[in-house]
């Protein structure tokens, strides 16, 4: 099971790099959706073979929410706002990729020095979580369009979710569901706001939203 776990983690980190390197919004959204599906599968693997109805429900809900519903909302926002599919980054794609790679390596290095429990110390669980959070930050800081920033936020949240899985054995399912619900609601709201911004300003370029800074 450990091998499958590491395979999934590896794919998730790979999708990170895809998200950083792509210049097209639909690809970014697909990457986030893919991450959502992969992360949704993780509880099943971590709990193997003690599956119960709760874990199954959580897996299904996470995959449905992160893998399909949220990307659907984002795609719809993108279509209704009728924005160009290019991303116009602050930080270019190659520098972003380099930053992302550095962040992943730093995450591995830093994890070595963290006081972890012995069962977490050997795996790539924690470094991957840190790498996701850092990638999310890079996207948030380096991208201009509101939707790509939402994707950065989602990747950041994926990292936090991955961290949360460390506590899978002790966290009540209710908390997990609540978190999932929160994210869906917030993306829902952001989708609506994106639409409104587009109508009001005729653009989703957050650089143009600076007049309210006082």
């Amino acid at each position, binding site marked *: 099971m450990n091998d499958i776990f590491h395979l999934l983690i590896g794919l998730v980190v790979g999708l990170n790099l895809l998200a950083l390197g792509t210049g097209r919004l639909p690809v970014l959204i697909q990457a986030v959706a893919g991450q959502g599906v992969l992360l949704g599968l993780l509880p099943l693997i971590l709990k193997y073979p003690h599956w119960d109805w709760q874990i199954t429900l959580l897996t299904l809900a996470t995959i449905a929410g992160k893998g399909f519903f949220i990307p659907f909302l984002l795609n719809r926002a993108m279509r209704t706002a009728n924005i160009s599919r290019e991303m116009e980054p*602050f930080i270019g794609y190659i520098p972003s990729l380099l930053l992302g790679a550095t962040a992943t390596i730093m995450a591995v290095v830093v994890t070595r020095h963290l006081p972890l429990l012995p069962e977490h110390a050997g795996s790539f669980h924690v470094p991957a979580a840190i790498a996701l959070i850092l990638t999310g930050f890079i996207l948030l*800081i380096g991208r201009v369009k509101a939707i790509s920033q939402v994707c950065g936020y989602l990747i950041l949240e994926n990292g936090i979710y991955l961290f949360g899985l460390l506590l899978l054995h002790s966290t009540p399912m209710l908390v997990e569901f609540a978190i999932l619900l929160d994210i869906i609601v917030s993306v829902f709201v952001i989708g609506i706001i994106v639409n409104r911004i587009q109508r009001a300003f005729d653009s989703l370029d957050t650089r143009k939203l*600076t007049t309210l*800074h006082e």
Partner: protein
Amino acid sequence: MYEIITPILLLSFLCAMIGSLAAITLPRVWTILTLIALMSAFGAGCFVLFTHTSWQWESSFSLSETPVFLQLDALSSFFLLLLAVVAIAGTIYARSYWPDSRYPHSSVQGRLWWNLMLTGMVLVLIASNGLYFLLGWELFAVSAFFLITLDSHNPQVRNAGWLYLAASHAGTIVLFAFFTTLAVHTGSWELGPVTHLPELKPLFWLALLGFGIKAGIFPLHIWLPSAHANAPSHVSALLSGVALKIGMYGIIRFSGWLPLPTLAGWVLAGAGCTSAVLGVAFALGQHDLKRLLAYHSVENIGIILMGLGFGIVALEHGLPYWGILALAGGLLHIWNHGLFKALLFFGAGAVLQTTKTREMSTLGGLWRCMPWTAGLFALGSLAICGLPPLNGFVSEWLIYSGLLTASTLVTPLSLGAATIAVLLSITSALALACFIKVCGVVFLGAPRSRQAENAKECDWNMRTAMLVLAGACVTIGLLPTLVWPVLMRVASTWSPSALPNIPPALISLGNAHLLLAVLGVVTVLGMLVFVRNKIHRAPTWDCGYVRPTPRMQYTAGSFAGIITAWFSSILRPVTYQLRPTTFFPVKATDISHTPETVLKYLIQPVGRVFIVLGDLATSFQHGRIQSYILYLFMALLVLVGAVTMVHLW
């Protein structure tokens, strides 16, 4: 015994609150209700002071699990009496000074905030609980701001108000730190003696700073001159006469309750000396009548602190007789200053109302048109200069007796006592010079402007207010033995100790004052009866000038010029001169004024540094959300780094 006080104070509170409602449309009802409220507060204070009881009241109502706990002991009553008397006079005075006919909008606000400010001050005096003390303190501080800025159309008034508010809030922040630290150490908001906790000694400095800003101790007085000068005169009287004393109340109250640091007494006395000498020096440099009076408040707060500080010094020696004398003098000066300073502000207000100017150089000769105001102002001036037979002399005499007795002892302390005594006498001399200047320039001589020529006497409301205060000044001056038991009650509340009998010297002082007053009255009457008809009016000797005009009189600046020159290194007067250089007459100018030096050379430069830093910081505030997230990220990294560093150590 003391149950009777509860309904009296309740009545007072209800009248004040209903009065503030009535203030909106029914000014007459407001006056009556406010007067009833103040008189019942006065009655409660008298009851506590003269029956040796103290009133305590705990309510079931509580805020954040802290029940309301009120207490009226001798010390609170002492201040409550002063508050009631000055506010009674102020309420009567305000009816004519700030009438609806002239200020249709701000007169309503004035009445409303007046009641709220009085309520706040009374709450501060009777709160026996840190939380409610702070609530009362803020109510009082904020309503004072609205009262100062009643005439808010004038930008000068607004600036004065903002300065007051900033200074007041700085003080409140310090007081929050003080009360919370106290509450943490004692485990509750209840206030009371904590002398058994020696680790609380440094808290005294916090209290001194917080209350000192309100009391106007030099150099914390920066808000005081402009606020007192620009507030309506009845508000100035209340601010100077009572609000500053609430600051003093805090200092006295907590110097009695807290364990005192070793140097506390000397620091207080030293601050008193600085305030007294520099306060009067700054006063001499002013040309604005009310600003001048405001600086005299700094001076008199200094005199109070001299007495109090020396009393605390004496406390370390077991509070011997000389310490009690100085302490009693300081306490009595609180009453006295409240009375005569309010009287002087009322007089200045009467002048301001009819001439529309506070600039002394455009006044002059008002004695002829406003005999009542001039006479009462002169009486107040005599009192504030500490001349017999008025109340100012009694309190300063008590402080002198304490200091001089102590300076005859053969201890290191005698040198300090002698120094303070010398500084006190310098202060009195300078105050005398200053009030000769004021009375001479404003009331004597010839009118310097059309307004001064056409001045009219104030009406009976304002006269009554002044007469009440003048009467109180004369009473304390002529019958000083009456207040001695009160002072001893207060002193024993402050620090439990033996109550000495009335000092024999005070009895003879009272007799001497009576004799002097009788002689004075007889002389004046005699002059009126016998000499009046023999006075001839003749032109003033004109020193050989061809055509003397009122402009050739001594001005406020030239009168005090020599003395302000002595202090010019501290006062830093600003002068502008345009001297004629040719042989024939040309236009010439000489302008001088004394700015608020501490504000201009200390606070404002520091403030400018902060403004520059703030401007630099705004370049980080540009609205780009990406950069904001970067800031967050950097801050997180720094925090993680810091935590890691701490762990590694």
